[in-house]
């Protein structure tokens, strides 16, 4: 890493408009393209402070600041356009979380990197609507929360309640949501409203280690720990009445359920296995990167292809996982209200992936190109009329689900044409960490966090209350700042806002 004074570093950064900064070549060695990041004045201060801290003498060797990571990604072989940092960007393994980068499939040196996908492959958010109103929930809120907690196992080491054997898992890995559909856990309409229709076609379970499958099998249908959660939310504010209407949201106070989860231990193991393989491939093909964590392999190499196939299987795992939890959520509601989920209108509004690499077509310098788009902590946000979004959203643009932090709020946005040209149809994914986990544990008390939620009238069930401060709103950037930045920068458009009334988490 180049060590420079903060003032020197600033020379490589240029504010091109109130919501966007450019990272010029030379900020990090060997940059093939420029970097860019989206911030408003509040987030800008956080970004620059992080950089400033890392420039203090004696600070080398710690976490790389997000800006540096964005620039390191810009130095990877085959990258096209720009390395993009979204407003919720914070440092992660290799790639910053909230970083997207696209690589040209026709360039034989282009790479795929597990660090650009993240360890929780196909971590994502799904949103179910209901025809209930907040006042319908109030009298039985505690029972409903408990019922959800009983149906969906949470926490590290939790096990699901949907019986599965090894053969079921193989099929689920290959078929994704089609498996859930075949077995009757989801509705046909759910598949229609899921990114990729809930199935990556290039998934190959034979490329997945036995260890991953062993870890994954008992965990299907569980929420997990960390920042994952299931929340009962109510519509708090509608910004785009037409788009909200298309999603079946027609009034303030309407109840929705948001599920935020991923591929659990399965995806983590797939990523870990791939990193080992890729280090070998890097030596063989002499791929140089600025950071050891940016382990990668050429897309068309054996290691690259194996990773993409295993990653697709992990993505399918995550979709089956979220589908199973959808089934359990519908069951919990049906039991409490003694009505069929159909009659409660519990339709899936959408399901987004925010940790994934996908092959997509984009226009680069006026030419259509096939790219491998890495989105890590970044949500796909395709514009209206894009062929890959469901027919119901053809006129509004793809719904983008932004899960906030525990106890704050969540947003639904839609994709825009400007986002398609500026960020390869990508936008933010959530609040984004401001304090590290360790730091939040030191600075906050879990009792304060829980009582604060109680004061807000939010029911909460957690498996490990003592870790709850890691996920406290104080540990994160303000999701409203993040979303407003995306809206103001034009890379996605606000549709409505949700406020939680009950939370279950690990």
């Amino acid at each position, binding site marked *: 890493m180049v060590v420079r004074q903060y003032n020197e570093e600033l020379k490589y950064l240029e504010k091109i408009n109130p919501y966007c900064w450019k990272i010029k070549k030379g900020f990090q060695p060997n940059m093939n393209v420029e970097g860019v990041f989206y911030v408003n004045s509040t987030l800008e201060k956080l970004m620059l402070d992080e950089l400033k801290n890392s420039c203090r003498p004696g600070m080398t060797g710690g976490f790389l600041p997000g800006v540096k990571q964005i620039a390191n990604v810009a130095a990877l072989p085959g990258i096209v356009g720009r390395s993009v940092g979204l407003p919720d960007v914070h440092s992660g393994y290799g790639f910053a979380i909230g970083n997207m980068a696209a690589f040209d499939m026709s360039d034989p040196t282009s790479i795929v990197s597990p660090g650009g996908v993240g360890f929780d492959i196909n971590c994502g958010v799904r949103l179910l609507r209901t025809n209930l109103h907040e006042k319908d929930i109030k009298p039985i809120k505690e029972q409903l929360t408990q019922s959800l907690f*009983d149906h969906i*196992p*949470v*926490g*590290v*080491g*939790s*096990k*699901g*309640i*949907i*019986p599965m054997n090894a053969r079921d898992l193989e099929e689920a890995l290959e078929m994704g949501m089609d498996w859930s*559909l*075949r*077995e*009757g*856990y989801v*509705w*046909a*309409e759910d*598949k*229609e409203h899921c990114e990729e229709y809930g199935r990556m076609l290039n998934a190959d379970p034979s490329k997945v280690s036995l260890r991953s499958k062993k870890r994954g099998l*008992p965990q299907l249908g*569980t929420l997990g*720990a960390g920042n994952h959660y299931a929340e009962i939310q109510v519509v708090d504010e509608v910004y785009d009445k*037409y788009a909200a209407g298309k999603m079946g949201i027609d009034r303030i106070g309407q109840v929705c359920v948001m599920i935020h989860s991923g591929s659990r231990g399965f995806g983590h193991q797939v990523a870990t296995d791939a990193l080992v393989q890729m280090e070998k491939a890097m030596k063989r093909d002499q791929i140089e990167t600025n950071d050891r964590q940016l382990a990668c392999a050429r897309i068309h190499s054996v290691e690259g292809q194996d990773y993409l196939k295993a990653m697709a299987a992990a993505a399918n795992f995550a979709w089956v996982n979220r589908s199973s939890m959808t*089934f*359990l959520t*519908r*069951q919990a509601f*049906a039991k409490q209200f003694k009505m*069929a*989920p*159909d*009659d409660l209108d519990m339709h899936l509004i959408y399901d987004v992936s925010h940790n994934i690499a996908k092959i997509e077509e984009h226009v680069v310098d006026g030419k259509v190109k096939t790219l491998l788009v890495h989105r890590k902590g970044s949500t796909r946000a395709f514009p209206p*009329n894009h062929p890959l979004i*469901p*027919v*119901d959203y*053809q*006129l509004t643009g793809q719904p983008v689900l932004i899960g906030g932090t525990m106890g704050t709020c969540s947003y639904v946005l839609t994709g825009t044409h400007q986002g398609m040209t500026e960020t390869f149809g990508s936008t933010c994914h959530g609040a984004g960490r401001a304090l590290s986990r360790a730091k939040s544990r030191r600075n906050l008390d879990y009792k304060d966090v829980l009582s604060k939620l109680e004061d807000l009238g939010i029911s909460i069930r957690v*498996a*490990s209350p003592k870790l709850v401060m890691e996920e406290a709103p104080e540990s994160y950037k303000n999701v409203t700042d993040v979303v407003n930045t995306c809206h103001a920068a034009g890379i996605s458009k606000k549709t409505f806002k949700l406020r939680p009334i009950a939370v279950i988490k*690990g």
Partner: protein
Amino acid sequence: MSNIFKLKLSALGHPNPETFNCEDEKEYRSVVLWLEDQKIRHYKIEEREGLRNIDDDAWISAYNTYQNDLVSPVTEGTPNEQLNWLLSYAVRLEYADNAEKYKEAKYEQPKQAAPNVVTSNPLDNLDFDCPAFKAGVERICTLAGVGPHLDPKFRLAALAKILNTKPHPDPPTTEANIIQQPADVLKLLFVQDLRELQTTINEALVAVQTVTADPRTDTKLGRVGR
């Protein structure tokens, strides 16, 4: 045909409806005799001699007389058609004997495997004659420009047609571009076609689900983590 025979024979309580083969002359004749002996009883016992001689060639003529005596409408038909009528006739007699009892019988729906089978359509309970319904239809029809008609249901149907074919937002008030406008129309028509296609796909998936779906949960497997 043999399936129908099987159903009717088992309904009548024949000892072995499963194995009955209507092509076998001997079995055919014995079933006819069984029907007369046990169910139809049109002749006195001593008059059934002609039908009883199953192995005799004269059986055919006895059978023909029997059918004429019963006034069967299919005496000219194939043997299978003749037997089918006889069976139906026997079932009819059986039912008439015990009409009260069979009236109580309920047909049990086979249990469907798909989840959430309970569907109730709130529209089913609508009172189409109440003034509130009529006023509502009147109001929405004025908005959508549907002309007057005596029957509000008729107008509602017209309205549904309009809403189905116009799935788009209000047209922009600004002066639209001469190229943009036809392009938009094409896009909307495309979206409409796509919606129909997707609906057909969903229906196909649901149809398959009724065969394959068997969602299960086992709460004993569950474990909450740390």
